[in-house]
């Protein structure tokens, strides 16, 4: 990332067709989606495509529709128009298949406080119908960067960063092709944020499509392959990483500030 140079940023309007997805197909796909709650329209003509091994950061102010976008892929919100797919499956019409291909990490990872990290992952894996023994869980916890001594500790005393690692371990153990992150770095200190971003690199290397909604421009610029700006339910602009310096953070910040205004 380079905050001083402007040539690393390539931007185009969504309709202009920023190349979506790295692989043969898109893992997360929203096409011309309209959605809302009751009479209240939240998302308008949303087009979003994220391919395997791609990290997409969705930025926007409060009420822009970021969380609704996540709910769309989770099947919690039914689109009134357009189409939503998770690895080819409709989250509303085919919830079982879509859920098996998707992991979700909320802003504040709430786990069962009276269970250990291993037991939490085991329980949630069992709930997903993907429990295959504790060895796989231990591997996932280690891959997520959790210290071995914490595996058997009750999560009641875990920091937010440690809880996120447990949630990441759950996603790794489930071998899902897509991961949704809701404000993942909110409340994390810089070191934990950096650790988390390196963890996302691991996910990218494993070919997982990641959609993160965030306010944290620096973190998004650090790890994302593309950044989308959402405002009033519309995806106004997408910026793709370019070259070694990836993003021009100053230029990104200016755009973000303009859209927020």
């Amino acid at each position, binding site marked *: 990332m380079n905050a001083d140079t402007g040539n690393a940023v390539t931007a185009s309007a969504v309709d202009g067709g920023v190349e979506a997805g790295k692989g043969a197909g898109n893992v997360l796909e929203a096409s011309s989606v309209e959605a809302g709650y009751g009479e209240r329209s939240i998302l308008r003509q949303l087009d979003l495509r994220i391919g395997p091994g791609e990290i997409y950061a969705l930025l926007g102010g409060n009420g822009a529709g970021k969380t609704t976008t996540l709910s769309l892929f989770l099947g919690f919100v039914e689109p009134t128009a357009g189409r939503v797919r998770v690895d080819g499956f409709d989250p509303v019409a085919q919830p079982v298949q879509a859920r098996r291909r998707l992991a979700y990490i*909320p802003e504040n990872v709430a786990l*069962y406080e009276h269970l250990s990290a291993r037991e939490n992952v085991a329980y949630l894996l069992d709930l*997903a119908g993907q429990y295959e023994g504790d060895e796989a869980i231990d591997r996932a916890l280690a891959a997520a960067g959790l210290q071995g001594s914490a595996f058997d500790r009750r999560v009641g005393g875990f920091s937010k960063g440690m809880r996120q690692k447990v949630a990441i371990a759950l996603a790794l153990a489930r071998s899902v092709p897509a991961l949704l992150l809701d404000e993942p770095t909110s409340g994390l200190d810089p070191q934990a944020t950096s650790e988390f971003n390196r963890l996302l690199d691991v996910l990218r290397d494993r070919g997982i499509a990641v959609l993160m909604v965030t306010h944290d421009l620096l973190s998004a610029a650090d790890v994302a392959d593309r950044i989308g700006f959402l405002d009033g339910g519309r995806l106004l602009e997408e910026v793709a990483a370019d070259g070694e310096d990836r993003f021009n953070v100053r230029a990104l910040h200016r755009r973000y500030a303009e859209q927020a205004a």
Partner: protein
Amino acid sequence: MSWLIHELRLILRSRLSLCALLLLLALAAAAVGIGLHEVARQHQAIERVGPLQEQDAAAVAARYADTGDPGSHAYYTFYGTWDAPSDAAFLALGLRDVAPFVLRVRALGLQSQLYEGETFNPELALSGRFDFAFVLIYLAPLFVIALLHDLVSGERQSGRLRLLLSIADGGSLWRRRVALRYALLFACLAVPVVAGMLLSGASMAAMGVVLAVVASYLAFWCGLSLLVAARNWPTVANATALMGGWVLLTLVLPTLANVALTRAIPVHQGVDLMLAQRQAVHGAWEIPREDTMRRFYDSHPEWRHSAPLPDGFHWKWYLAFHQLGDESVADEVSAYRAGLQARQEWTARLGWLLPGVSAQALLHRVADTDLRAQLDYQDRIAGFHREIRQFYYPYLFEDRPIGARDFADRPVYEASPGPSGSVGLHALLALGLCWGIGLWGVLCAGRLGLR
């Protein structure tokens, strides 16, 4: 079945849930233990009656052996009767607390003897005994509420709901959690009951009915909890609604229904019958003896051939006016019993609306401790009392002396410990409605989610 291990771990690691389950188990075990102890005490009391009865009769025989006077024998000899508890009585002691299970009667007027003990143990009539029926009907719903009131709202408030629903279908998740909680609650209640029934030698049929009652009643409360949870209210609102339901269904409505029944079907107290009978008996001292005997012979012509009364006191006149005293209140006795039975029938009908009433009535029926059991015991006493009169009347009305050998042939009350009470199909059907609520709740569980 790995889901079972994981869900078990989840609930048993929760200190609150574990404490609630252990407490329910302890309460059920204590109730069964107390019930078994009480039944054993009643058996011992009944066993003590036999030898004491023999001693008493021997004393009478020794005292009046030389007189040959059947009237003295009839007047002074008490006969023990008893109502042995059924094998399942420990579950629901019911009316055995307030009605005597041992009653000594003699050849005098029966009605006054039947109701002399009616106010026995009045303090227990108020609060009821701590037995299994009490634990099931009044306490178990509180534990259901404790374990289920925050089934979904608890997850929402702790921030786990979206994570959970991103992984699993909410309907199946809630259903498996409810099923496990239901099974654990059932086990906490059923294990002490089964142990108690095995110890007491209760029949498999009785055990089946009792377990069906437990299962159905829990199904009702679990279903109700799910229906409330389906409203997607906050935890506090769920708990308040369910506690309100508990107060309404187990306390307020049954009490109001009882008051309404009492007013709609007025029934004299047994003590009123006793007083009326005594009044008739004591009044006999004030009227000519011949009038009394004429009335007696009119209703008992088989003794009309008896010799006229001599001057002075004669036992046959005394026993005749006692029997006339019984007969003078016969209509009131019939009305009293009919009134009680009518109330019982209305209570059974109420069971179609109030599961607690239905479950309680079924438990008392299986335990044979309900009104029907009490009236059956009174019928057995009345039958035995007829035998006693029929034993003495030939001696009295034919002026025959009674000897030691004759006295030895006096009637003896025989009643083996009763089996568990039989249960009518309609009562089980009424309880079946509980399953309707339970299944409705389970169906609604599929709707529980993020709203």
